[in-house]
């Protein structure tokens, strides 16, 4: 039986980075991936002459030359920065309020962002400046926390980062009100909330601020050849460093003896190892991969409290005309029924709720599709179980089309841009599609809901205590840094370093 220092289950963002980090430190690492390609959700697919990125999200925290963000620095450490081509967006987002038809286009760069906000919401400058100041404090505190190995002393932390300790327990709205952010500015600033897959008044300010800051400071970026390019670069680097990756290898069991990991089994292979990093939901790992008597009761109790994050429906459209011909000018369109995110979240418990994010990669990367064509993806989050109640064996394909049709109609009506007649290729992904390719419970793609004690800081602070089976750790969207691209990459490195420390 072959023996590895560490086996990583799942080649998603977190898994790839964990594996590469450990392999580069001289460990012998094996990645077992059930699918056919690296990246998990960070992948692409072909239809006709188009190549679609599965996830519409842009990467935050990249930055590039002269303005290195956390992700760029991570990619440098991993040795892939020179092997990928990233393209920077010129604006952060464009939001349209369906109710009032008001539109707001927000630029990249903290100063520009503040100025633009002042233009839209006179009198917001001071609060906005405070907001970004807090963002900076939080960023510093978080990187301190992530690099600190031992236990944290709150008094010491308070000395270093008073604002961080003060704000840590509060949600986004409480802090923004406290710093007297004007109502309209709160609404515009909250636009990104849909990227979190949780309601804004559930998300901790610390988490929200760190991500928004990263978008505004460094600007959103996309890989020239879709996120598949990043995943392949990580995979190649891992292989060049001597790492082993097996595809079509679904892990069925993690062997545990006396509270320690001893090995991993797929349908046809068994491997020995004392370290496993699972890039998947702990619900799945504890629920079916480990023999019942070896699963710590406390972990079951925790998992039984945790709520799956949002799911989504995405419509991928290959359009047979250029951006100019169609009239698409923004890379990211947030279409909102109501800019008040709390009202919007309530509305979004309905299945057909009309909150849609449109993403047009060609605005950032003219070559995202062949000349004279462009790509538009429309995404709508799903909260609650309305989707599950609606779908049956008999109607699934029709419901899928109904969703596609609805999202296109929402986009056309809100923006006044017609796209239907240009559709050359269409693909529609539902929670079923995401569940099929990732295996995640219910097709959840945002990990667990960031809510109450399952927010960023409680997760980080409890990580060691909750690591009860020696040698078993989790990375990726269900991990401690939560679920966006940048967080999962960074979390991959954290977890690798912790494993290395053992």
């Amino acid at each position, binding site marked *: 039986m072959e023996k590895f220092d560490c086996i990583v289950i799942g080649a998603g963002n977190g898994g790839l980075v964990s594996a590469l980090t450990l392999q580069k430190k001289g460990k012998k690492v094996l990645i077992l991936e059930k699918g*056919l390609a690296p990246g998990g959700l960070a992948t692409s*697919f*072909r239809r006709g*002459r188009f190549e679609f990125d599965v996830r519409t999200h842009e990467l935050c925290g990249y930055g590039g030359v002269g303005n290195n963000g956390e992700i760029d620095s991570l990619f440098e450490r991993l040795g892939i920065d020179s092997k990928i081509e990233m393209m920077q967006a010129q604006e952060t987002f464009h939001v349209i309020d369906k109710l009032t038809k008001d539109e707001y286009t927000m630029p990249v760069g903290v100063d520009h962002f503040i100025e633009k906000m002042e233009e839209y919401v006179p009198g917001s400058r001071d609060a906005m400046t*405070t907001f970004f*100041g*807090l963002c*900076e404090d939080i960023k510093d505190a978080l990187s301190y926390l992530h690099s600190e190995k031992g236990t944290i002393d*709150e*008094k010491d932390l*308070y000395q270093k980062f*008073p604002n961080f*300790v*003060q*704000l840590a327990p*509060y949600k986004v709205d*409480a*802090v923004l009100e*406290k710093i007297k952010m004007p109502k309209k500015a709160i609404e515009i600033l909250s636009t990104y909330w849909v990227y979190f897959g949780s309601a804004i008044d559930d998300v901790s300010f610390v988490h929200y601020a760190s991500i928004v800051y990263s978008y505004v400071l460094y600007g959103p970026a996309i890989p020239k*050849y*879709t996120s*598949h*390019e990043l995943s*392949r670069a990580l995979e*190649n680097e891992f292989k060049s460093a001597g790492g082993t990756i*097996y*595809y079509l290898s679904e892990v069925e069991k993690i062997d545990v003896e006396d509270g320690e990991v001893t090995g991993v089994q797929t349908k046809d292979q068994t491997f020995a190892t004392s370290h496993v990093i699972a890039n998947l939901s*702990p619900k799945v790992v504890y*629920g079916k991969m480990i023999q*019942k008597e070896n699963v710590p*009761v406390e972990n*079951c*109790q*925790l*998992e*039984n409290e945790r709520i799956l994050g949002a799911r989504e429906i995405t419509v991928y459209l290959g359009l*047979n005309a250029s951006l100019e011909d169609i009239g698409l000018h923004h890379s990211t369109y947030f279409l909102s029924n109501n800019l008040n995110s709390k009202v919007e979240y309530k509305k979004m418990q309905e299945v057909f709720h009309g909150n849609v994010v449109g993403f047009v990669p060609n605005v950032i990367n003219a070559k995202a599709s062949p000349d004279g064509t462009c790509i538009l993806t429309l995404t709508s989050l799903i909260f609650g179980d309305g989707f*599950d109640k609606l*779908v049956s*064996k008999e109607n699934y394909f029709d419901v899928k*089309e109904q969703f596609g049709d609805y999202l*296109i109609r929402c986009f056309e009506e809100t923006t006044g841009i017609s796209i239907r007649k*240009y*559709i*050359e*290729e269409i693909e529609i992904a539902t*929670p*079923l599609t995401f*569940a*099929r390719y990732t295996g995640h*419970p*219910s*097709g959840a793609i945002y990990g667990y809901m960031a809510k109450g*004690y*399952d*927010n960023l800081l*409680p997760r980080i*602070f*409890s990580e060691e*205590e909750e690591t009860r089976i020696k040698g078993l750790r989790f990375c990726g969207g269900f991990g401690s840094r939560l679920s966006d691209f940048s967080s999962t990459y960074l979390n991959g490195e954290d977890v690798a370093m912790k494993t290395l420390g053992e």
Partner: protein
Amino acid sequence: MKDIVMEKDQKKVFAKFNDLALGRRDITKHSSKDLPKYSYAVNEFVSVFHPSQMEVVVTKIVEENENTKSFWIKREDGESMPPFQAGSYITLEVHTNGRIYKRPYTISSDTDSLKEYRITIQEEKNGIVSHYMCYDCKENDKFTVYGPFGHFHYSMIRDSSDIICLAGGSGITGVRSMIFDLLKSKKVSSIALVYGTKTVNDILWKKEFDELAKKNKNFKVTYLLSEEKRDDYPYGLMDEELLRSLNLEGKTFFVSGPVAMYQALNEIFIKLDIPNKFIRHEEFRDPLETDEEEIYELTIHQKGNVTVIPCKSSETLVQSMEEGRFSAPVHCTVGVCGYCRSKLLSGTVKTDTSALRKKDVDLKYIHPCVTYPLSDVEIELP
């Protein structure tokens, strides 16, 4: 940066801060100790719609004509077949000559009858699987099948509500289930089917189509014979004149048939300036011209194992794997689905990369099912 004070009392500040971790511990104290639930309604749906493979048994064989047979298959485990969109195919695994072959066959039965699927196989000259199925397969024989797969489907969003189906030979299989599905569900306003075969006897389901045309004013069928001249049937191949006569403006074409038919039609589509958007076709492979027959060595790396087998310049790498008794991961066999995607580690090949991701083309990934060796070749399979 100025200090923001949410809480003045330092003790309370620390208490709240520490509660982030402690509160999390408390909240789970009273929750269930059962193993966590990991499979939800959606995950159950996944196994219904996309079983990884199915063991099936042939319940009935129908001789459709001299060289075509239909096979009704149902699952051995008694479950119903997965729901599918008309136009989908399954991949059939056949064991014969001590080798394993996998071939795609379009489901020709109706989308609303899932007790069984029907596949309809036309015997190909020198074809291994089609020959086996048409001559050796008996009722109650058992097979493994994969799928359903494919993207040859009607879309209400993308496609015109007036469609033209151009089918040739066994290409009628998927078109048949599409037509029945679309007329039943009233998703389209009109369907014109042009169905080309060699002779009258080759026409499959003629009675069914004729009856359907009688019942549905919006469905028209034209049979076209290429090797039999008769007064009551048009003669020849699908050409420009025929296409023009169909009033093609703004209509969507569904094309399914032999490769030669795609090639001929493509030229006409270009000439008539019909945008890609209006042309949907069944997955197929453009055969690549190969030179004289050379024999090379194919080295395959897969999950840490290395296998060396001979390969021929006139055969795809997948065909060589079949001959060399190496079980290849294939579904479509025509370079479209991506299931066989492998990294070319060394050697030169002739291949079709049109369905690969851009980055993968740069990184020398290939689809072995449409790759011919021009030297010794080394690949890494998934």
